[in-house]
C-alpha cells in the first residue's frame, strides 16, 4: 500500500493541480498577448501556440523525466541512457512514471480516436480520377510557381471541399464536387492557402495541440476560447500568406465561401458564429485586394521546431539539475498518508 501511495497521489497531484495551475498561468499570458493593442489577435501565433501546448506538455515531460531519473538511481543523463549495468532502481518513481504514462495514454488514445474517427476521407491518386479534373489541377499547379511542390490528391468524399492532411508529409485533398463548382483562379487561390498549411505542418501542429488539451483535465475548460481564437487567426494568417505569396485575394475569398457552403441539410450545424468568422476573413481579403498585406509573423513557422527543442531541454533538465520538486511531491504524498492513518 505504501509503495502505491506516491505513484497514485503524485499522479493525481500533477494532473489535478500542477497542470491546471500551468494552464491558468498560460491563460493569463495569452489574455495579455491577445489584448495587446499593437499586436492583436492575429499576431504572436507561434508564441501563443507554445503557451497552449507547452503549458501541458512541458510539466508532464519534466515530471516523467524526473521520475525516470530517480528510477535510474540519480545517475547523470549519460549514465541513464548508456550505463546498462546500473541495476539499482528506485521502485516508487518508476511506478509513478508508469502510472502517469497510463493516465496519459488513456486520455490521449480517447482523443486520438475521436480525431481520426472517419474525419479524413480516403484520397484517390490523381491517375484514378477523371482525366479532365486531373488535367485541370496539373494546369493550375504548373501555372503557379509557388504551388509546384504541393502534393495534391482528389477525393470523392461527400461534403468535402479542400483540406491539408498528413502529419509529416502533408498532402492537399481536393473534393471533386468542390473542384467542379469553382473556376481555376478560385481553385488556385485555395491551393495557395493550403500551401501555407503544408509548409507549416499544420495537421501535426493541430494534433499536438489537441493532444495537449486532452492530457490536461482542465485544459479545454480553461484554454478553449484562446484555442478557438488561435485556430481562427491561423486560418486568417494562411489567407494573408497566400496573398503575399502571389494568390489573388478575391478569388480566395470566393473559395472560402464556396468551401463553407453546406451541400446537404444533414451537415452538422456549426452555428452563425462561424459565418461571422468567414465574413471577417472575407473582409480582410477585401483589404488585401486593396493593398497587398505586409508579411507577418516571420517566426510563426518555427513554432514546431522550437516546441520540440523546448521539449528536449525539459526532458534533459532533471538529469542535469535537480529533481527537488519530485522529491517534495514524494515526501508530501508520504506525509499525507501518515496524516490520514494517524
Amino acid at each position, binding site marked *: 500500500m505504501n509503495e502505491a501511495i506516491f505513484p497514485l497521489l503524485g499522479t493525481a497531484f500533477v494532473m489535478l493541480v500542477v497542470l491546471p495551475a500551468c494552464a491558468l498561468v498560460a491563460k493569463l499570458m495569452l489574455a495579455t498577448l491577445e489584448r495587446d493593442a499593437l499586436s492583436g489577435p492575429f499576431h504572436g501565433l507561434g508564441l501563443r501556440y507554445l503557451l497552449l501546448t507547452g503549458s501541458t506538455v512541458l510539466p508532464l515531460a519534466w515530471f516523467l523525466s524526473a521520475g525516470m531519473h530517480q528510477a535510474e538511481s540519480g545517475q547523470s543523463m549519460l549514465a541513464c541512457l548508456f550505463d546498462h549495468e546500473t541495476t539499482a532502481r528506485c521502485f516508487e518513481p518508476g511506478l509513478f512514471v508508469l502510472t502517469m504514462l497510463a493516465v496519459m495514454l488513456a486520455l490521449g488514445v480517447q482523443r486520438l480516436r475521436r480525431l481520426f474517427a472517419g474525419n479524413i476521407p480516403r484520397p484517390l491518386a490523381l491517375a484514378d480520377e477523371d482525366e479532365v479534373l486531373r488535367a485541370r489541377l496539373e494546369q493550375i499547379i504548373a501555372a503557379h510557381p509557388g504551388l509546384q511542390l504541393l502534393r495534391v490528391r482528389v477525393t470523392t468524399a461527400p461534403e468535402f471541399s479542400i483540406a491539408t492532411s498528413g502529419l509529416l508529409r502533408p498532402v492537399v485533398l481536393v473534393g471533386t464536387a468542390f473542384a467542379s463548382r469553382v473556376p481555376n483562379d478560385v481553385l488556385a487561390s485555395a491551393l495557395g492557402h493550403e500551401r501555407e498549411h503544408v509548409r507549416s505542418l499544420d495537421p501535426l501542429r*493541430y494534433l499536438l495541440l489537441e493532444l495537449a488539451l486532452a492530457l490536461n483535465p482542465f485544459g479545454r475548460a480553461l484554454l478553449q476560447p484562446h484555442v478557438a481564437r488561435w485556430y481562427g*487567426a491561423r486560418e486568417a494568417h494562411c489567407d494573408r500568406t497566400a496573398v503575399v505569396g502571389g494568390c489573388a485575394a478575391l478569388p480566395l*475569398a470566393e473559395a472560402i465561401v464556396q468551401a463553407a457552403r453546406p451541400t446537404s441539410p444533414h451537415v452538422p450545424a456549426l452555428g452563425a458564429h462561424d459565418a461571422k468568422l468567414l465574413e*471577417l476573413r472575407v473582409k480582410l481579403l477585401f483589404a488585401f485586394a486593396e493593398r497587398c498585406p505586409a508579411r507577418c509573423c516571420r517566426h510563426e513557422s518555427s513554432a514546431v521546431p522550437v516546441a520540440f527543442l523546448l521539449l528536449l531541454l525539459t526532458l534533459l533538465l532533471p538529469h542535469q539539475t535537480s529533481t527537488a520538486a519530485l522529491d517534495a511531491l514524494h515526501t508530501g504524498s508520504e506525509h499525507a498518508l501518515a496524516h490520514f492513518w494517524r
Partner: protein
Amino acid sequence: MDAVWSKNLQSFAVSDVLTGLEKQRDIAYTTVMTVVSRLYTKGLLSRERDGKRYLYSPKLTREQFLEATAREVLDGAVSDQRAMAMLAEKVSVASANDLDDLEALIRRRRQELER
C-alpha cells in the same frame, strides 16, 4: 468607411464620399455629412479645416480596423478540430443565406476592381 477604404480616399471632403455613393443609390448630402461626422466622433476619422470645409482622413486602414475588432469574432472559430487543416468549416444551412450575401459582396467587389 467602406466607401472611403474601397476608393482609397486619403484626404477627402464630404462631397467626395457623396460622389462615390451617388453612383450606387440616391443619398442626400446631409445624410453623408451626418455619418462622416459620427465616424469622426467615434475616432475612425481625423479632420482638419480647409477654408470653409473639413478634410477628413481615415485613421486606420481596413485591415487595421478589422484586426482591432476581430477578437470577439474569433471566439466563434471552430471548436472541435480534426486532424487536418481545412480551408473553411461547413456552416449550418441557416447560415447559407449569409454565404449568399458574402458571395454577392465578393462578386460586386470583383466587378468594381475590374472596372
